[in-house]
């Protein structure tokens, strides 16, 4: 057994907290980067049977290493089966067969709507971002959505420059009237803490802070008025087992 010399960084804790959410999930839809690391970690530590679903059509992938792209060869080689893009969206995502979706975004608003399209005006963009990808339909249809994003005023904004993906729209009832199958965002995991939608207003509220983080620090890094839960928790620190597994995974 390796000795875990350094305590978890905030980024490492963010990944571990995201992985913990997958303890009881049957399947998770993941993009690249931290969500992918979290999902692979979840399979290693918490949930051997977790089905990893990548947008490229690889269902039940069991990557040993963290893939760079969502279509690396190892994903296809280790998948239970591989499907075309039309099949992925029409047969697997659309009808709501995937339990949890991990999504990232450049901007998140108080109703957990996401922007991954453009910063600035659409026709004269300051920064052109990659665009929607699969996010709009994934967020509409998967059982629930977990957003993983860095915590800053640039990311958590009062108003999105473009609404690429609907979280709770303009508030309670919107998902229902839009005909969405999934329940919507259940948590936003950042490097400072965890935000969850208020059950009545759907507005993101601070429900947990990571160890050593102050509430004020989180509010200062949020571009909208951030309410704090009456039952604010402090995130359980990373265990040696979690941290060792994560560091070993990253080093592969």
């Amino acid at each position: 057994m390796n000795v875990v010399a350094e305590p978890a960084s905030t980024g490492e804790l963010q990944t571990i907290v995201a992985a913990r959410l997958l303890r009881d999930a049957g399947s998770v839809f993941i993009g690249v980067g931290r969500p992918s690391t979290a999902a692979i970690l979840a399979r290693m530590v918490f949930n051997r049977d977790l089905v990893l679903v990548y947008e490229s059509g690889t269902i039940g992938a069991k990557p040993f290493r963290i893939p760079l792209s969502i279509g690396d060869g190892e994903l296809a080689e280790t998948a239970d089966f591989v499907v075309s893009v039309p099949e992925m969206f029409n047969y697997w995502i659309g009808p709501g067969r995937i339990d949890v979706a991990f999504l990232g975004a450049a901007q998140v608003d108080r109703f957990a709507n996401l922007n991954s399209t453009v910063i600035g005006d659409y026709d004269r963009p300051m920064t052109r971002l990659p665009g929607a990808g699969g996010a709009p339909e994934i967020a509409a249809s998967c059982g629930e959505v977990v957003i993983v994003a860095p915590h800053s005023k640039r990311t958590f904004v009062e108003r999105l420059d473009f609404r690429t993906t609907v979280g709770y729209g303009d508030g309670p009832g919107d998902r229902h009237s839009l005909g969405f199958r999934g329940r919507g965002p259940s948590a936003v995991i950042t490097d400072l803490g965890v935000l969850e939608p208020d059950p009545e207003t759907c507005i993101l509220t601070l429900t947990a802070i990571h160890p050593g983080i102050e509430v004020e620090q989180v509010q200062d890094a949020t571009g909208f008025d951030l309410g704090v839960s009456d039952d604010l928790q402090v995130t359980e620190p990373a265990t040696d087992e979690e941290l060792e597994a994560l560091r070993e995974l990253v080093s592969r």
Partner: protein
Amino acid sequence: MLVSRPGPGKSRSATLVPLAEAVADLVADGDSLALEGFTHLIPFAAGHEIVRQGRRDLELIRMTPDLLYDQMIGMGCASKLVFSYGGNPGVGSLHRFRDAIENGWPVPLEVEEHSHAGMANRYAAGAAGLPMAVMHGYAGTDLVGRTRVATVTCPFSGEELAAVPALRPDVAIVHAQEADRAGNVQLWGIPGVQKEAVLAADRSLVTVERVVEQLEPRPGGLVLPGWSIDAVCEAPAGSQPSYSLGVTERDNDFYRFWDELSRDRDRFRTWMDEHVLESVAAG
């Protein structure tokens, strides 16, 4: 408008030809062009040949523009891009794509963007000879009003659904692992939307890693008969730096290298001169 496609017959069977010849025959300035391959089997060799032949004013269609369209856009081949995710997967931005949209360099680029589900359904409708696809999607997003999506009511249930127009590219180009001498093609691994793109297009070209005497059935193998394709070209390693499962590996280092190199217009042009314009097509 109804488009009928010929079935198998002597008049229509893919011919095995050199890549430069096939591109010259099938691709003209102003064409709409879909080079597909979802992370896997991206037809880089064919795209580079289009750059060498100096094609202009193309409408480039692709779910994930990836490095290939970044290169073609940066070389001024395109006047319009139809896409759903314009990033360097796992790395970050596509800098030539961004420069074209943000600054109009080297030429202005019109964009039409969709979601992946929208693009996939548009190809499937094109392949089926339908004018549009209906789906659950786009609802509540700012894509509505910015792109070609409309609402239709299901005549049976009354449910409101999104409608997107079929994609019917002038030309589809895909890459596969193998073809036989009759031009039948087999690909395996991540299938993306290649089959749909080929069947939706008016003309099609498939580049392959190798030509074999006889196709051997593979698990998950997808076969495109020679009579559904116009030209087949041998292009070994023709999907690099993406990959052809079982033949080549994805060059992840190149995807990272591109992020740095492509930020600068001059370094980009120099690299393209040395590695694309001054090189010769395989086959």
